[in-house]
């Protein structure tokens, strides 16, 4: 599904990703862990096409297509989704309206008929139920005045609605209370399917108790320096990153 090979990327002439390799198969859940500033969000942004990053080497293919030559909106329409570490506020833009526009943009891209207001509301209700969310956030402007946890839940809700093929969750667990963590994790789990892959960026093993990953990777200094099964996360929880960094440096 996603194949990243030797990816190098710079921001303001500073190299952040320094030859990163990653293979994600259909239906797989990969966790990415790593110290602050190691390049996790950068990877997420480069994959989703944010401007301001320069790819200096390597390749990224998504379902056989060269992802790097596409605009962010085209990547989104093809099934890529990024749940932001810091969701952005859009004052005055109604959340429901925003979601409908996003969904219809995607449908248009695929030559499908756009959903009218009625069918969209029906779909939205369905998704709310699955995620055990209430609809109070949907009447408000996108992310404006949402609490940290509400913002994250809203991201998951968008994901549920847009039904991506590859979802990148950038620290969706940070700032969540225990109950919210559950809601988010349940949501993510309910979206797991053989066709849907996920890249879950997190600092905490705790999330992985709820969302069981198939693989765990450690991203440090711009590279994946270790990959393993879910037991790697447990090991990291106990020992920190020092030992892997040392081994990698050795």
């Amino acid at each position: 599904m996603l194949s990243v090979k030797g990816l190098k990327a710079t921001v303001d002439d500073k190299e952040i990703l320094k030859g990163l390799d990653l293979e994600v198969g259909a239906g797989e859940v990969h966790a990415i862990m790593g110290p602050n500033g190691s390049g996790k969000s950068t990877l997420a942004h480069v994959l989703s096409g944010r401007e301001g990053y320069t790819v200096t080497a390597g390749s990224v293919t998504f379902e056989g297509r060269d992802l790097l030559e596409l605009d962010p909106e085209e990547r989104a329409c093809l099934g890529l989704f990024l749940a932001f570490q810091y969701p952005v506020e859009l004052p005055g833009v109604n959340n429901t309206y925003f979601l409908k526009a996003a969904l219809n943009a995607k449908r248009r891209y695929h030559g499908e008929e756009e959903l009218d207001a009625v069918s969209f509301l029906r779909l939205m209700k369905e998704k709310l139920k699955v995620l055990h969310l209430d609809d109070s956030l949907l009447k408000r402007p996108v992310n404006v005045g949402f609490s940290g946890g509400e913002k994250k839940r809203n991201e998951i809700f968008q994901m549920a609605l847009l039904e991506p093929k590859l979802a990148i969750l950038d620290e969706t667990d940070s700032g969540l209370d225990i109950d919210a963590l559950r809601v988010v994790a349940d949501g993510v789990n309910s979206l797991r399917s053989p066709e849907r892959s996920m890249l879950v960026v997190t600092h905490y093993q705790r999330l992985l108790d709820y969302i069981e990953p198939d693989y765990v990777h450690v991203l440090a200094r711009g590279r994946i320096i270790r990959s393993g099964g879910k037991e790697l996360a447990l090991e990291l929880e106990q020992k920190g990153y020092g030992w892997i960094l040392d081994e990698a440096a050795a």
Partner: protein
Amino acid sequence: MSATPQDLPGQPVAEQRSGASRKAAETEAEYGHLVKSEYEHGFVTEIESDTLPPGLDESVIATISRRKGEPQWMLDWRLAAYAKWLEMPTPQWAAVHYAPIDFQAISYFSAPKKKELKSLDEVDPVLLETYEKLGIPIEEQKALAGVAVDAVFDSVSVATTFREKLAEAGVIFCSISEAVQEYPELVQKYIGSVVPPTDNFYAGLNSAVFTDGTFVYVPKHTRCPMELSTYFRINEAKTGQFERTLIVADEGSYVSYLEGCTAPQRDENQLHAAVVELIAMDNAEIKYSTVQNWYPGDEEGRGGIYNFVTKRGDCRGANSKISWTQVETGSAITWKYPSCILRGDHSVGEFYSVAVTKGRQQADTGTKMIHLGKHTRSTIVSKGISAQHGIQSYRGLVRIAGKAEGARNHTQCDSLLIGDKCAANTFPYIEVKNPTAKMEHEATTSKISDDQLFYCRSRGLSEEDAVSMIVNGFCKEVFNELPMEFAVEAQKLLSISLEGAVG
């Protein structure tokens, strides 16, 4: 701000108007053969043509008045206005730049004449593209662009039902010319009572030569059964160069009036100087909404409309209310300040505005709220959007008179900049002569952030859709004030007018 009068392509016109008398003398020399003879015959001579030759003097005004079949008092009023106008200087303080207008080069009776083009091929393709996007039928496109139409597209039957319904309610809704003939006592009582001819240069000019416009009178305790819109006034569907609109809401009545249309309108007349007067008596309410999309000119601003408008509402009665809501995206130059005089105790004035300037457009707009009565309240919400080389100034005056016990004002003035070559200025003027006044003023300037754009795009929205969504969000408070249908159109209009404005 990079624009100077020189690099602003306007009509190639003569030198600065440096004194009316000199100009008049020149005119006599130039057009003497036409004008002279009329002088000799006093004010009765008519020129045997549909269009008066360019130039302005008393005989031209007399001819206009005669053609319109006006009573003597109306002519006297016009002539008095003209005499005062000759002594007035052109306003210099608005923060806009344009080549001086030669008032003797304008023909004052052909308005609103549109130059007939032979086919749509002769029309600016950008304009046609916009019509397409707005979904305007081809015949209507032709009419708007000033192309000769074979079929008349207005629907007489709709307009007729409309008139019948209004008549039942006792509401008068007709052209100002018709009103002068049919309801002279009403017109005479109210015209110029809010915007006197001496008010300002353009109001003076308008008073002397106005030929089009609307008259509305809503009788006591009557709620006008529908939104009034010039669109239905089929006999005067075109917009004139010097329009005069007068709306009177008698005690306890209500009326909502819609002006303008979202389709960009072309007009051979570059200068537009309208006057709008609103009068609300005790417990009456007038809601005046404008969506204006004058042709802004091509990329360099050539051919765009100069829009100098005086709009003022008089809350004459106690508990009366006047709201101005406007969405402006057109014109090369806009200069207007819809205002409210809060004369009646407990009267309310509101101003909600969205103005867009892009390309080489310049806008100097704002409002004046004059609190005279006790416990009067006013609200100002101004949203300015500038893109490309657009220049926008908001100028707001709030004056609380000494007797305006307990007056309140809330002003919110937000600017949104798209790109870094545009500019927004804010000039708030506040004069408070009564210590019990409560004033609130908020102003913000923001930019559409890269974060916001990326967030939207990562959800599958194109950059343009993202911008229009964010801009519409920014304008929401104003759109909420518009009648439903108008709001939808206004949103669409805004999106279209900002296409290609990013990047």
